[in-house]
């Protein structure tokens, strides 16, 4: 019959066999062993077990395990394996960043600029600006933007544009967008402005008025294309929404903006409505060679930037993969 024993007694007996108990514990255990037969039985069995284990033959190594120089990893392996691993990890991280940037369009300024261009006629259409002023200002703005970004637009060019009667309220809106708008705007046009949440950047992006409005804001009398771009860029997403997608009908304004503009007898507004209706409307309304050239140039730049991005991504992927494989091979050699 198998005697029962507590884990604590088992440990005491095991240590007693190995003479690991202190004198007090040993005497106490010996006294118990003299009285408890079960404890004595377990002790004897443990002693036999230990003797059996100790009697096991000591095996000899089947061969010598001495090392030769070729079994040891070379210094190059020790040095390059972690380095390659680091390079691979770094390239993978950069690839992820570039891919993420590509996904969110962070590396495509040309695309952003292209999206800004259609925004101009769209907002203008609500202001009732004369088509001649729009054409001149648009041409001036593009011609100023394309050849040299830093070339300033002269005050004459800005002031040549005849201010309309809506200019003052727009300037006021540009300065204080939260303030109530001027009363000289037509009611529906004003409501449209609110619905589209027109911001100062959008107002200034109107080619015919932006020059006047921005010159009023800056007060410097000169306007650089950089300022124009700064004013236009924040409205790029809104421009994209309002030019490439159908204009949503506001809840409080039954008629559609396009319908209203088409009903207006002004031929200039009709032209503006056409511009708004098609994304390529700018080319149709302004068939001048400068604008066509600029669009083609931007598209060329955009596709070139995209190619560069793809090449960069491919290079990073190659580096990440190659360095990773190399590190793996080196480590594998090191193990052997």
């Amino acid at each position: 019959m198998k005697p029962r024993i507590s884990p604590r007694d088992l440990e005491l007996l095991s240590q007693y066999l190995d003479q690991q108990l202190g004198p007090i514990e040993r005497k106490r255990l010996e006294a118990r062993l003299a009285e408890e037969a079960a404890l004595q039985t377990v002790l004897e069995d443990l002693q036999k077990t230990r003797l059996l284990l100790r009697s096991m033959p000591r095996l000899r190594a089947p061969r010598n395990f001495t090392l030769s120089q070729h079994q040891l990893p070379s210094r190059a392996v020790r040095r390059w394996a972690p380095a390659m691993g680091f390079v691979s990890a770094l390239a993978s991280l950069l690839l992820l960043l570039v891919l993420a940037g590509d996904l969110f369009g962070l590396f495509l300024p040309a695309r952003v600029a292209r999206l800004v261009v259609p925004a101009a006629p769209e907002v203008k259409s609500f202001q009732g600006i004369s088509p001649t002023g729009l054409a001149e200002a648009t041409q001036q703005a593009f011609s100023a933007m394309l050849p040299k970004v830093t070339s300033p637009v002269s005050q004459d060019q800005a002031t040549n544009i005849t201010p309309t009667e809506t200019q003052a309220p727009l300037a006021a809106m540009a300065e204080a967008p939260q303030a109530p708008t001027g009363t000289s705007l037509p009611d529906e046009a004003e409501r449209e402005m609110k619905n589209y949440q027109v911001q100062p950047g959008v107002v200034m992006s109107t080619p015919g008025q932006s020059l006047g409005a921005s010159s009023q804001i800056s007060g410097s009398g000169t306007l650089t294309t950089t300022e124009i771009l700064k004013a236009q860029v924040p409205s790029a997403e809104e421009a994209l929404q309002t030019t490439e997608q159908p204009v949503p009908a506001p809840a409080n304004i039954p008629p559609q903006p396009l319908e209203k503009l088409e009903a207006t007898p002004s031929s200039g507004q009709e032209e503006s409505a056409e511009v708004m209706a098609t994304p390529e409307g700018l080319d149709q309304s302004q068939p001048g060679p400068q604008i066509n050239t600029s669009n083609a140039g931007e598209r060329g730049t955009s596709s070139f930037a995209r190619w560069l991005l793809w090449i960069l991504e491919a290079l990073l992927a190659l580096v990440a993969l190659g360095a990773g494989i190399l590190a793996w091979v080196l480590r594998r050699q090191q193990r052997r």
Partner: protein
Amino acid sequence: MIDEEELIRSAQQGDLEAFNRLVLQYQDLVYNQAVRMLGEAESAADATQDAFITAHRSLASYRGGSFRAWLLRIVSNLCYDELRRRKRRPTTPLEPQDDDGEEVESPAWIADPAELPEDHLVRADLGRAIQRCLDELPDDFRQVVVLVDIQGLDYTEAAQATGKPLGTVKSRLARARFRLRDCLIGFWELLPDEFRLEKENRS
């Protein structure tokens, strides 16, 4: 004769010959630990070789103390890796079969008196029986009992070789011995004469 510490110091400075002298000194010890933990010679030889390669690579991390305990810790860790690998990809061991072709799962097949014509055979069978019982132990228990009862390390060295506190080593050793006693109790017939006589006197 160059003492061990000097050999270790030379090996740490890149002297491969000094390291190989340490290998020759300890290869039986390391191999025995691997065989008892893995229960198989071929894997044990591989583990032994890997242990010395690892030891050479890690010599800089040796900070004194028992060198054999340090080596035994390395080989024990490699054996744990191999045991884990086996658990992930289990293989069917070659078990003895009875007359009907059924596998005999209990190691009691060794206790057949017909297989004990000579003493050396008795010892060989006893060794296999003990190894079977060792194989049935949990890995942590097996490591400690091999270190103390087969390799002859004291408690402190065993604690160093396992990387566990002294109390854990004592507890595991006691429970491992008790389990082995339960396993080996069916093999008393294979015990050397002195043990058999003791059993008969007791009964």
